[in-house]
């Protein structure tokens, strides 16, 4: 304790100085520009998708702010969800996977041209899908599959090309064992591709009840069999890498993997509890939702035990706080999802804004925070340029505080809504009761959006360019005050 630490010092500065990453060992320009392009496009979709989301949150306070059909709530809502799903999160995860898979396989990416074709297919499909949604063309109003099938087909071809590319890279690996990250990342593809195919085959979705059975399956797996395993796989690489120590238990990771596959696949119907779909599917969904606690405990336990005793390292890193917060969110809010599936609680919260809070706590608090942790952790190693640590910190706190405001407003508000309905008051009373909660949601959403602008700025600071590490060093140790 001879050395004074900014973390432990009595007089604490506003920010802690952050350590910088080691210089890039082998830089491959083709590789760098490919990955940065994926991450850059993702950032663009993040700004667009959350700008739309923010605008929608204002519409609850000012429904007459515009009377333009293309900007109406019903049309923009799926633009927000689909853009942040398929444009931002998916492209960002693929960007990180294009780094992690070749690294852990000790091989170059199998094909660069194929990766570029996939890049354009995915971006074009999100652009076309968004324009069509705003024009009022959607896929029968089915949540998270609002892009009509020709658009989703283009997206799917892109994803299949990425999957094939990564699978060939893994098959060609320079070590004998397949690292656990690649289990999860490949599984995300191998689960999502049949999922999308099943969701877009029409012949067993010809009346609204059979469609609902598929909808529950699809909307849940779309999140849980794509984003969840994908970011977990990335974290199985990024976390040990940034801590410079092995993962706590490889076996726990494998256990969580199989538990994810067996349990998670069965729980989609919990989105339609009390609907006139077969009761047994709903009961199975509830049982397996509760069983997900095993998967959660194994996954988060593994990460937290890896991080044990590394508090100072985490405090002195600008990327690890995102991962710590993301892992905690993974446990808390997935467990929240299991609880919500139970019939008595679902009775109160179903159809309310509580669900909106839950989806943001998981998609944002868990998935997106881990994506940011991975991008901040990996991109500087690739480009040789670090983002200003101060602004990464601002990004972190705006995002976390914004999300907290957003979700607590909607969780409390959603409960108020449900109780209002239960009391038998006229429906409009629940709308009036929500007004202040919707306002707080907009405030939280504004903070979140500002954090995305800062993230875009940090992305710009990490861009690949000629002058390397010398310029990055002073920026990394920048301290306010």
């Amino acid at each position, binding site marked *: 304790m001879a050395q004074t630490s900014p973390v432990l010092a009595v007089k604490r500065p506003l920010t802690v100085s952050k350590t910088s990453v080691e210089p890039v060992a082998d830089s491959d320009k083709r590789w760098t520009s490919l990955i940065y392009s994926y991450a850059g496009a993702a950032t663009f979709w993040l700004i667009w998708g959350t700008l739309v989301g923010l605008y929608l949150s204002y519409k609850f306070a000012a*429904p007459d702010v515009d*009377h333009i059909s293309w900007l*109406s*709530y*019903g*049309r923009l*809502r*799926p633009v927000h969800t689909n853009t942040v799903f398929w444009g931002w999160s998916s492209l960002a995860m693929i960007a990180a996977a294009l780094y992690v898979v070749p690294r852990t396989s000790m091989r170059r990416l199998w094909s660069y041209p194929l990766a570029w074709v996939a890049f354009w297919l995915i971006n074009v499909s999100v652009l076309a899908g968004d324009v069509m949604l705003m024009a009022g063309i*959607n*896929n*029968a*109003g*089915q*949540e998270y599959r609002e892009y*009509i*099938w020709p658009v989703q087909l283009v997206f799917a071809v892109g994803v299949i090309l990425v999957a094939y590319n990564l699978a060939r890279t*893994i098959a060609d690996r320079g070590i004998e064992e*397949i690292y656990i990250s690649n289990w999860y990342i*490949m*599984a995300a593809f*191998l*689960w999502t591709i*049949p*999922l999308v195919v*099943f969701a877009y085959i029409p012949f*067993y*979705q*010809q*009346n*609204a*009840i*059979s*469609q*609902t*059975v*598929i*909808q*529950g399956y*699809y909307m849940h797996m779309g999140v849980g069999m794509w984003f969840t395993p994908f970011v977990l796989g990335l974290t199985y690489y990024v976390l040990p890498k940034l801590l410079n120590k092995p993962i706590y238990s490889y076996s726990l990771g494998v256990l969580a993997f199989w538990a994810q*596959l067996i349990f998670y696949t069965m729980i989609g119907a919990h*989105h339609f509890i*009390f*609907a*006139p*779909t*077969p*009761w*047994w*599917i709903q009961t199975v969904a509830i049982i397996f939702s509760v069983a997900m606690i095993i998967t959660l405990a194994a996954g988060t336990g593994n990460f937290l035990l890896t991080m044990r005793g590394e508090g100072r390292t985490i405090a002195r890193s600008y990327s690890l706080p995102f991962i710590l917060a993301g892992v905690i969110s993974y446990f808390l809010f997935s467990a929240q999802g299991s609880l919500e599936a139970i019939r008595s609680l679902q*009775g109160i919260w*179903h*159809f309310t804004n509580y*669900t909106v809070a839950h989806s943001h706590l998981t998609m944002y608090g868990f998935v997106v925070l881990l994506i940011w942790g991975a991008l901040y952790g990996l991109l500087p190693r690739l480009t040789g340029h670090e983002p200003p640590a101060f602004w990464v910190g601002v990004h972190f706190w705006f995002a976390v505080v914004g999300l907290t405001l957003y979700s607590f407003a909607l969780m409390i508000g959603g409960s108020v809504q449900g109780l209002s309905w*239960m009391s*038998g008051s*006229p*429906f*409009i009373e629940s*709308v*009036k009761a929500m007004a202040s909660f919707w306002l707080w949601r907009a405030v939280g959403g504004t903070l979140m959006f500002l954090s995305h602008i800062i993230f875009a700025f940090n992305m710009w600071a990490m861009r690949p360019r000629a002058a390397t590490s010398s310029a990055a060093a002073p920026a990394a140790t920048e301290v306010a005050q």
Partner: protein
Amino acid sequence: MNLHKNHWLLFSVTFFVFVGLSLIIAIFPAMWVQDNSEPLPGAVPLTALEREGLGVYVAEGCVACHTQQVRPLEMDQAWGRPAAPGDYAYVTPLGVWAPYAPAVLGSERNGPDLTNVGARQASDVWQYIHLYNPRAVVPDSVMPAYPWLFDRVADAPPGKAVPVPAAFAPKDGSKVVPNARGEALVAYLLSLKQVSLTAAPAAEAAPAAATSAATEAPGTAPATEVPAAAPPAAAPEAPAAETPAAEAAAAEPSAAEVPAAEPSAAEPAAAEPVTQGAAAATTGSATTEAATTEAATAEAATTEAATTEAAQPAAPVEWDEALGESTFMASCAACHQATGQGIVGAFPPLVGNAVVGADDPAEHIATVLYGKPGGGVIDGVTYTSPMPPFAAQLSDEQIAAVINHERTSWGNSATLVTPDAVAAARKAGQ
């Protein structure tokens, strides 16, 4: 053979286990459900215009905020009886670009459930004003306005112009007329009416007796004049029970297993035989309190009726003010507004209204029971929008309570009516 070393084995196991589980939990159940969701016997398919309206409903993303899914929970009774698979049999794909049944069940209720909106808000004029700008009729609404479902024209064909209140109407004085998409959407919304689980196809009026305790029979027109129905359990031979849809509904646990839905269905009918016809006619718009207080009100009314046969009893009328207010809010306030002021030029005020203030309530009762199909001249102002009839949706107790609510609120102070007077008017016919 090692999952850690053999990538093709790992990938295959991962892939095929998922596909197998998907077949079990989603694909096969969807196929089974699809083959076992026959339309309810009383249901009618959507017309071409209504299907076009369903298309508009989907395109505008109405499903984002409105459900069409009544759960077998007490809190959902405000929206109708619990949904059955057969309710959705006619919700079928709209075209090759989206060859799937539209996702009308929804997942969020920022706005009310629309399962029964065609019965609840049957006025097309109200629907048009509400779509043009929801705040014109529901001041606290957060729903978007849909002006692009309307044309603004200098001269509207007679009866076509939507009487939008001045504060929301175009400033240049042009008339608002629904365009084809607007007309289709309203036709679709007005088609959203729950049909009885047990009613037979229109021609052969089947007894409205429930086939199971949980299958309430709302919306059964009193025209069928059901002789005080047998106790719910004693109607095993009801013809409707033979149809596959009813079988599916009966086998469907969501309708049968949850006890919350049962008491409301069984209680009013069993408790008070005199009001049985009325109880059977109670629609889903009856609130929870309505269902529970109904029997008590009815009892009070019958004792009263025993002493005096007159429409206007000499003794002060005891009535359920809470029932009156809740029924008014659920069935009347959308047009006449919670303030009773109506909407200028569209829906008449009830404050200072000659019919509401009249000593003889006969016309007031008749108006609520049978509506005013062609609008009419009220206090010197001509209204073109029809007033819908409520005879099929509200019980005598509810109608009496709502009339009394109107006669005693907002400064009104007129003679009160009894459920018995309503029953008498109902019996006398239009």
